[in-house]
């Protein structure tokens, strides 16, 4: 025993983890070889495949959940970068500009910094609750991504009660904030947690009531169906049928995501960081990850519910058809489909562009000879054409275009959230509550009533929506 325990103790932590894994791998390999030699393998594989096929829903769910968990990382980094850069722009500062091109990696470095920081637990805290709270907050925001339709056919889980699921899960976030506020054993945290509870519960109500109009109009809670109902031109988007609902939803979403001017839960100039005061390291990072993911999700939900989700604002197919272009895919595969009139452009383009590029490069880089410039220009041209063709091909696939439109709308709304943060001071807790209960809830109720009445009236006069 001692003979084994001494080298084992000398191993580093990583070694202690890796060595058993290697042992397991070797054992698995031996088992596989034995199985193959004995002829049992095909039988086993068939059984496993059958089992998986029978439970494809679970598999699909697990895969989607994993992918969505992973997606949150770049999403949060992107949002943090946009926030830093846009607020800097509003503040007449430069903002992050050192790490990566245009400072794009600054937020990644921030994430790494948070990872590297010491994660300590203050004395007096309720340790299990204190430890669980960031995970609850994070999961509550991430799990809602499961039902968000990113593009046609690209969604985590096509739930018929998607909208209900979204509100149910996002409402869990407040439990995490309360846990953090209570367990931190700090009065600032306590105030922050209670503010979170009061504010978020108040704003759940207008948030849910605001989308009731859409539920009435579309007759479904399935988010995919809601998006499909908005296809066509941008005039079919629900924002034009539910402008009041959209406004209420966006304001309530700002409060729900505790974004300025409703960020009372973490008001840094009042209660320092609210529920997050006692957190450090990655546990603190989880809260902020959750906040930025939440910002993305709320933007995404606004886009899905009111701005047509992945639908393009204009359908350009008729114009393309009139020009003799069927789809971008056709051009990429067969330039001849552009018609004889436009074909000469394609044929003339390579020499003209290469020549132009050569001239430009030669003028910019005076120490290069014209031949070197021409070679560089040719390579550059090929890269550009290759990229262009790839782009055209991608545009031909409807989920790629859908994703582009969806992300465009979502990021636009996220930037709007950031702009609000840059320009508006924070409201007070009584103003926040008064605004929710005196203005948003009645307005949302009026919205529901008017929508329902309109549906009934239009139905009666024989022109249902």
């Amino acid at each position, binding site marked *: 025993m001692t003979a084994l325990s001494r080298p084992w103790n000398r191993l580093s932590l990583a070694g202690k983890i890796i060595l058993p894994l290697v042992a397991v791998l070797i054992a698995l390999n031996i088992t596989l070889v034995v199985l193959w030699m004995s002829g049992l393998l095909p039988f086993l594989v068939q059984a496993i495949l059958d089992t998986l096929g029978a439970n494809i829903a679970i598999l699909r769910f697990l895969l989607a959940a994993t992918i969505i968990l992973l997606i949150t990382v770049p999403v949060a980094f992107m949002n943090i970068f946009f926030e830093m850069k846009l*607020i800097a722009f*509003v*503040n*007449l*500062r430069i903002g992050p500009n050192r790490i990566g091109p245009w400072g794009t990696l600054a937020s990644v470095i921030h994430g790494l910094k948070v990872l590297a920081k010491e994660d300590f637990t203050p*004395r*007096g805290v*309720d340790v299990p609750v204190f430890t669980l709270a960031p995970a609850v907050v994070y999961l509550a925001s991430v799990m809602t991504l499961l039902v968000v339709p990113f593009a046609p056919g690209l969604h985590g889980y096509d739930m018929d009660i998607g909208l209900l699921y979204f509100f149910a899960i996002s409402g869990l976030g407040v439990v995490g904030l309360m846990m953090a506020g*209570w367990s*931190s*054993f*700090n*009065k*600032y*945290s*306590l*105030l922050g947690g209670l*503010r979170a509870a009061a504010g978020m519960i108040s704003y759940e109500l207008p948030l849910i009531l605001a989308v009731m109009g859409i539920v009435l109009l579309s007759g479904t809670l399935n988010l995919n169906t809601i998006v499909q109902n908005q296809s066509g031109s941008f005039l079919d988007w629900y924002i034009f049928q539910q402008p009041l609902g959209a406004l209420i939803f966006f304001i309530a979403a700002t409060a729900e995501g505790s974004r*300025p*001017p409703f*960020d*009372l839960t973490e*008001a*840094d*100039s*009042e*209660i*320092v960081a609210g529920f997050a005061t006692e957190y450090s390291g990655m546990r603190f990072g989880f809260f902020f990850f959750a906040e930025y993911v939440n910002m993305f999700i709320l933007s995404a939900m606004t886009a899905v519910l009111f701005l047509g989700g992945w639908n393009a604002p204009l359908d350009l197919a008729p114009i393309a058809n009139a020009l003799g272009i069927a789809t971008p895919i056709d051009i990429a595969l067969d330039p001849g489909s552009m018609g004889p009139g436009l074909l000469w452009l394609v044929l003339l383009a390579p020499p003209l562009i290469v020549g132009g590029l050569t001239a430009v490069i030669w003028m910019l880089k005076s120490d290069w000879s014209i031949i070197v410039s021409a070679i560089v220009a040719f390579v550059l041209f090929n890269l550009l054409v290759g990229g262009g063709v790839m782009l055209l091909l991608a545009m031909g696939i409807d989920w790629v275009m859908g994703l582009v439109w969806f992300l465009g709308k979502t990021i636009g709304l996220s930037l709007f959230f950031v702009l609000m*943060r*840059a*320009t*508006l*001071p*924070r*409201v*007070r*807790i*009584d*103003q926040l509550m008064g605004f929710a209960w005196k203005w948003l809830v009645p307005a949302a109720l009026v919205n529901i009533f008017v929508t329902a009445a309109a549906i009934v009236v239009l139905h009666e006069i024989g022109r249902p929506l």
Partner: protein
Amino acid sequence: MTAEPRVRSLDDPEILVHSPAAIIDAVPPYPPRTEREAEFYTLADGEMFINLGPQHPSTHGVLRVVLKLDGERVVDLDPVLGYLHRGVEKICENGDWHHAISNCDPLEYIASMFSEAMPVLVAEKLLDLDVPRRAEYIRVLAWELNRISSHALFIGWLALDLGGLTPILYGFIERDEIVEMLAALTGQKLLFNYLRIGGVNGDLNHEFLSRLGDWMGHAAKRIEDQMRLMNENEIFVGRTRGLGVLTRETALRTCVTGPPLRATGVPYDVRRAHPYSVYPELEFDIPTRTEGDSYARYLLHLEEIRQSIHIIDQVLHQMPDGPVMAKLPRLLRVPPGRAWVAFESPRGQYGAYGISDGTDQPFRLRIHDPSYFTLQAVGELVPGHLVADTMAIMASLDPIMGGIDK
């Protein structure tokens, strides 16, 4: 609260309390010294203490305020000072009059051109010294520039304490230009050490004047930008209007001076009430407002920036030629006597009471900092408001802890 308390207190792990709200960390570990202290540190049912500072983003320095809260509503508060106390008055007594200038410099570190004027003006009054007119004009120029830079920061801080991110940086743009300008004049950016007994340390130079000219070109427009950003902002107005209303009587009883007093309608500005330097020769208004709330204080600061720009304009046009230092012996023995000087700093009436015993050292230099008295007003203004309003009220009174703690 019938269940057994289960949370361990942070102060003493042996003590079990009902909730984090019952932690008693703000209570001083010694018996109360006065009845007021005893009354303050006794909690009624449902109240809790919260310790604001000394490390807190919006206490403008190292101020600690113990708030007694009922929910989020402030019942009472007890400011605890002394975290920046250096004993400047004692230090000044132990150096000579010239040393006192640089010792007083860091008191009002946002507008140190004012705090360093205290020993200068006292000594000049005791010496019955005639300061060259050019030096007086240069002083007024430096003071008004510094006043603008301080007010620009005030506006930013007020917005920052209300949660706005941008105005502080707009304020810093203004301040940055003025500070660079004054650095060209004095050689330093924060603690200028520029005024001297009998004049100023150096004449105007080309760099200063060219920077000043550039700045004067767009100074008024900057203020318009600030106003557009904040004046009509619904949330900002909603947070500040009607908040922390100081009445005329309360302000006078609390010895508040400066913008908080003028916002209550009392046109008390030492530049007019007791003219000093060349202010009688300059034309400017003392803006007042009658509301006395945070919003009025904010608007008053904006108006004072305009008036200061107006003063600077006149000073530049009327600037006489001549020396900038009076002839004085190197070893300055100030004749015995008592003198009180007061002058208007961005935060109110700065005063100094100097006593000389005929040596080259001050016998006593009493420093009167306006923030010290303004900060007292939070005791009257804050109770009844919410925690968030505490910051808005404190920021609108614009205290600087360097001067308060001396």
